[in-house]
């Protein structure tokens, strides 16, 4: 089975001379949820817009299920749905009309049943006869999602789908994305909410200054780069870390009441049990302890910093 999307050697230099993409290579498998992370201006939207035909690439080859997006654009675009980053709707159209329009624009036969289901799924059915200008921002975004899904695409691009969407709606969006995946739809999304990528993605790509600096399975990424932290709340303050604890890289809080031990999840010899035993032997008592795993966000910030240090 060919990859749902295959990008090789993609570069983009805007007319301004700014190089927004510097040689992107990326394969996305069918049915995958791929999250593209990166700070503002990293090139996420540029990448998506090139695949969808809004921006012309400077060089490189892009295949959507084996169809060249430039030479065989009709077949490629038929497979692709796009929800762009910016809200853009026809204010004077009704919700129903605009979604039907999208379906026909993509060359599909009218299908009222399908459109009804789509609008119901997106909680827009009650508003189908309303003008788009009377909807809230979050509803407009859902209209754009309905438009993008109206021609039953195989590959869906969501450029920051949950920007400006409330918590409840965001959860609904996540479940919609999951249900799409169950139907075999490949989803590529960008987001600034790391928890979103953490929650949904199978694989994560981090793009920084136009280059993909990491592409990993989410679990691998978290395992490889994630850190764990053990914090012990001591009963009596310590003046300094005793010599007997030199084997562990510990940090003592200024109050002397908290002992912190951080280690990477990949470390083989993280022996918390031994540490606790040693504390006991040294007569250091603690009243509480907790551990936490670093979030993807911390991993991400670390990666971007590292990327910044590397010469471009």
């Amino acid at each position: 089975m060919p990859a749902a999307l295959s990008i090789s050697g993609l570069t983009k230099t805007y007319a301004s001379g700014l190089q927004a993409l510097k040689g992107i290579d990326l394969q996305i498998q069918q049915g995958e949820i791929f999250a593209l992370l990166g700070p503002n201006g990293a090139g996420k939207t540029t990448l998506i817009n090139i695949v969808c035909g809004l921006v012309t690439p400077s060089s490189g080859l892009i295949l959507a299920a084996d169809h060249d997006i430039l030479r065989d654009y009709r077949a490629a675009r038929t497979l692709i749905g796009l929800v762009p980053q910016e809200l853009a709707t026809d204010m004077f159209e009704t919700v129903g009309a605009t979604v039907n329009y999208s379906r026909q624009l993509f060359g599909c036969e009218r299908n009222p049943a399908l459109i009804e289901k789509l609008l119901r799924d997106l909680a827009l059915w009650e508003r189908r006869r309303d003008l788009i200008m009377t909807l809230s921002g979050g509803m407009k975004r859902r209209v754009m999602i309905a438009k993008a899904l109206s021609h039953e695409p195989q590959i869906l691009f969501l450029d920051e789908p949950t920007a400006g969407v409330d918590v409840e709606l965001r959860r609904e969006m996540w479940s919609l994305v999951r249900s799409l995946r169950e139907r075999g739809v490949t989803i590529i999304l960008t987001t600034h909410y790391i928890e979103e990528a953490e929650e949904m993605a199978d694989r994560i790509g981090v793009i920084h200054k136009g280059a993909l600096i990491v592409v990993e399975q989410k679990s691998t990424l978290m395992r490889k780069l994630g850190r764990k932290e053990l914090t012990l709340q001591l009963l009596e303050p310590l003046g300094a870390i005793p010599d007997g604890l030199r084997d562990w890289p510990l940090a003592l809080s200024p109050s002397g009441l908290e002992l912190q031990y951080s280690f990477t999840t990949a470390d083989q010899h993280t022996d918390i049990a031994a540490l606790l035993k040693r504390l006991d032997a040294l007569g250091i008592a603690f009243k509480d302890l907790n551990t936490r795993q670093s979030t993807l966000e911390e991993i991400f910030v670390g990666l971007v910093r590292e990327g910044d240090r590397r010469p471009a």
Partner: protein
Amino acid sequence: MSSWHFNRRGVAAIYKFEMARFRRTVLQSIVTPVITTSLYFVVFGSAIGSRITTIGGTSYGAFIVPGLIMLMLLTESLSNASFGIYLPKFTGTIYELLSAPVSSLEIVLGQSGAATTKSLVLGGLILGTASLFVPIRILHPGWMIAFLLLTAASFSLFGFVLGIWARSFEQLQFAPMLVVTPLTFLGGAFYSIDMLPRPWRMVTLFNPIVYLISGFRWSFYGKADVSVALSLACVTAFLAVCLGLIAWIFKTGYRLKN
């Protein structure tokens, strides 16, 4: 280029979308030109025209009908078509057209087709309004329709080019207001260029709209300022230039894609 068939549903969708936009603004787009036409008749036809006897055997009121229709046709085709493509560029909804499996030809067909349709309806309405004021006869109805259609189509295409070129509403207004309207007035909409002194007649012949109006008026009254073949060639050439420009725009993505 592609193995896929012509996206006829896509073209129909674009056409219907544009027609729906016209329907929403039916007041501005139909009532305004009809009232304007009536005003022209009151002022030029009755007030001034009563002092002019005939031009080439045609009463002045009847003489100005083809020119008036052309004036409306040119400005309306231009502004409708340019607005039709400028608006999605301005609001950002153009993303959908660019990401859909429609070819450039199909987009132009849907958009300019709708603008042309509207212009033709408008032309008919003005003709109807005019016939309330003056007796009109049409010697060559087939040619009249041909000129109407060719002019509406080519200026709709020209409007499409203008809408893509424009970066602001001011630029969008620029061509209809500052180029087409003056050229139409100077192009013999309200007079025969035979009435001009000799040097000015020469200058006027560089105005392409002279040929449109002359040919169109010929289809009504059988009298032309310039040869009909020349008129026809002129409209066809203009159509070809616009088509060429549009092909180039889509090939290069000029002001459409980054």
